[in-house]
């Protein structure tokens, strides 16, 4: 009887430890590189949560982590660009429409210039161009935010882009 109870308790404990592992998240060992890397970025928590929720990070070196962050940057830019497109279909005041058009250009530039340059630079081993591209993405997001004379419908998206860009740039800096 006591033996059964013991087995049961052991199982319960093991399950609570290993169930999360079955979803493919990071093992405690690999978390060290992520934490060390993220400490060198301006937004530690954001950096860690992005990297830890990407299963590729468990096998990645610093270049790999940078590539993951650029991927997230790309996803956010794509999402924002699509959101802008949807907004533009609606009935808008002239100054808002004007601002959104500028922002569409901006996010297109991020996706057509900054992201491919960052990826190519990281993969081919000339990381400074990736740092510049990531910094540029943050600047572009600021430009977008400033293109609204009144309220900006993209404040959250732009802030998110700036945050991810600054983290990506900081990770790339570690490779220089």
């Amino acid at each position, binding site marked *: 009887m006591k033996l059964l109870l013991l087995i*049961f308790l052991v199982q319960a404990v093991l399950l609570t430890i290993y169930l999360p592992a079955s979803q493919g998240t990071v093992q405690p060992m690999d978390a060290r590189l992520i934490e060390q890397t993220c400490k060198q970025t301006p937004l530690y928590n954001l950096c860690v949560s992005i990297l830890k929720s990407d299963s590729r990070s468990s096998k990645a070196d610093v270049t790999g982590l940078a590539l993951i962050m650029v991927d997230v940057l790309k996803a956010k830019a794509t999402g924002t660009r699509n959101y802008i497109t949807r907004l533009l279909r609606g009935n808008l005041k002239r100054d808002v429409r004007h601002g959104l058009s500028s922002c569409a250009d901006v996010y297109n530039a991020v996706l057509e*210039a900054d992201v491919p*340059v960052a990826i190519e630079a990281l993969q081919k081993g000339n990381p*400074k161009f990736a740092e510049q*591209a990531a910094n540029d993405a943050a600047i572009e997001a600021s430009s977008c935010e400033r293109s609204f004379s009144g309220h900006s419908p993209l404040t959250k998206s732009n802030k998110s882009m700036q945050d991810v860009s600054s983290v990506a740039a900081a990770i790339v800096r570690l490779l220089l």
Partner: protein
Amino acid sequence: MVVSTLLRSFSSKHEDPAATLPSSTTPLLYEPRPGELDLERRWPPKRAALVVIFGFLLLALFLAILIADLNSDVHANGNVSLATSGSSMASEPLKLVSRGVSAGVSEKANRVFACVNVVSFPWNNTMLSWQRTAYHFQPEKNWMNDPNGPMYYKGWYHFFYQYNPNGAVWGDIVWGHAVSKDLIHWLHLPLAMVADQWYDMNGVWTGSATILPDGQVIMLYTGSTNESVQVQNLAYPANLSDPLLINWVKYSGNPVLHPPPGIDSQDFRDPTTAWYTSDGKWNIAIGSKVNKTGITLIYSTEDFKNFELLDGVLYSFPGTGMWECVDFFPVSNTSIKGLDTSVKGPGVKHVIKTSLDQARNDYYAVGTYDEKAGKWVPDNTTIGLGLRYDYGMFYASKSFYDLHKGRRVLWGWIQESDSEIADVKKGWASVQSIPRTVLLDTKTGTNLLQWPVEEVDSLRLTSKVFDKVEVKAGSVVPLDVGTATQVDIVAEFELDKEALERTAQTNVEFSCSTSGGAAERGALGPFGLLVLADESLNEHTPVYFYIAKGTDGNLTTFFCADQTRSSEATDVDKKIYGSTIPVLKDEKLSVRLLVDHSIIESFAQGGRTCITSRVYPTKAIYGAARIFLFNNATEASVTSSLKIWQMNSAFIRPFRPEQDH
């Protein structure tokens, strides 16, 4: 019943047929019947069944863990190609705190703008097309970066460069090519080398030329292989009797150098021009890093096909990161001639220069080369590589010995400092500096003097002289030269001596980059020129001197260029650049500015300190661009004498066989 719920969901995910689960109504704990707590008795059937069930559950648990592990493996390998850099995180703690100006590292200010103007995209074609330069080298369109393989051959100066044929941002890099008779009037030729081999498929990167005594031309360059490994390759002209050197052949045995043991496959690039040694061999240098220590490797060769890595390094400096575009050359400390790369002996010092990836600046120092030991030692060992060729936008520079005129000439890559969206809109990015002669400044012994090659003077058209213009404290004086977007300015400044004596000392430390720019008034400065300024001074770029009197009564002079008010656009660089500049007793303050649309090259004290600025005004363009003298000092008045020339275009264009020979 949390555990049972967990178990059920567990099993449904992993469909393990071996697991049999109790239903939610079956109690998991065996309730002992009275008198049956003795384990040595035979177990009743119910208990046995429960033991079996738990056994299966344990099995299921372990299987699930195994499967989870396998899943994450497949997921990682299948989705992303993670470039293996092989470099581990540095074992020493990584500190991103700058070592400070005294250690030769300038502050990197972030490009964070105070949102004053809500201006959405002022860029239109008029503004953008104005930015193109008239007499600085740039290709007809697209992206350019590092200068490559500059040399003089059979009557032509050759210039190669990193080029993206597909867009106005970095990528798909190949070698562009241009020729000129005078380093100013350039004619574009077809691409010299493209990425057509496995060993340079991912980039035909930077390299240097060596001209051998027997007339052979050797080009060593870095290739990024199909696996993104950095290797060195040999190329040579297909036809040495073609003065234009249009076609190039890559050596069939390439690559000639692979990254050596201990060097990361992506930290091995930019081979230098070779120098001849006393033991009859040629040496080249290649920059790299080990952890965060920047180093320079030396290789020895007799045929440029087989190389031997020499022990140790030519020089290294901790904490500097990757060394790109290393340059190593001799300078004379007795004459004003340039020296061939192989020269050594008495009256000769050697310069090491490196482009620091981390700082995006070019650093150099003067020192002594011990050929036998394969080592170079800087004259000032505390600072190491403390001086910069240029305190503005200037990177990946490369020098060569010009056999035609016996001088050492320096090229520097001048990037854009606007946003990439603007570069994509205007369809191009980057220019080269006007080639500069390089000489040791024998008066200070520490600095190099850089000066625009004399051929640039051939672009001078009409001029205007201003003699002893007095600029009182806190005033601005317009200089009427008409339109001022393509001008060459030579100016001298004299501060009123009485103010110099009378001014109080201060212990406040000044630096160009952390100051309030030209608008921040001090007793003895700032004063200088306002260029690319519109009539109402809404936009202007000050290039100026600032004199500080330290606690010991000594004067320190600073030379700065302030981009904070250079443009009303909000997405351009608005930092202040500059440095201290040694000014010797009885030297007047002198400056030369080459203004060419969106680039300003400034040289102080004969080129002892240089600042290159990229500016993008929106109003102070075309006919609206003006020049002013200004003096924002509180105490001293300043007298200035200047000569200003309008500059012609260099008409840089494609080579036309019928016309150009």
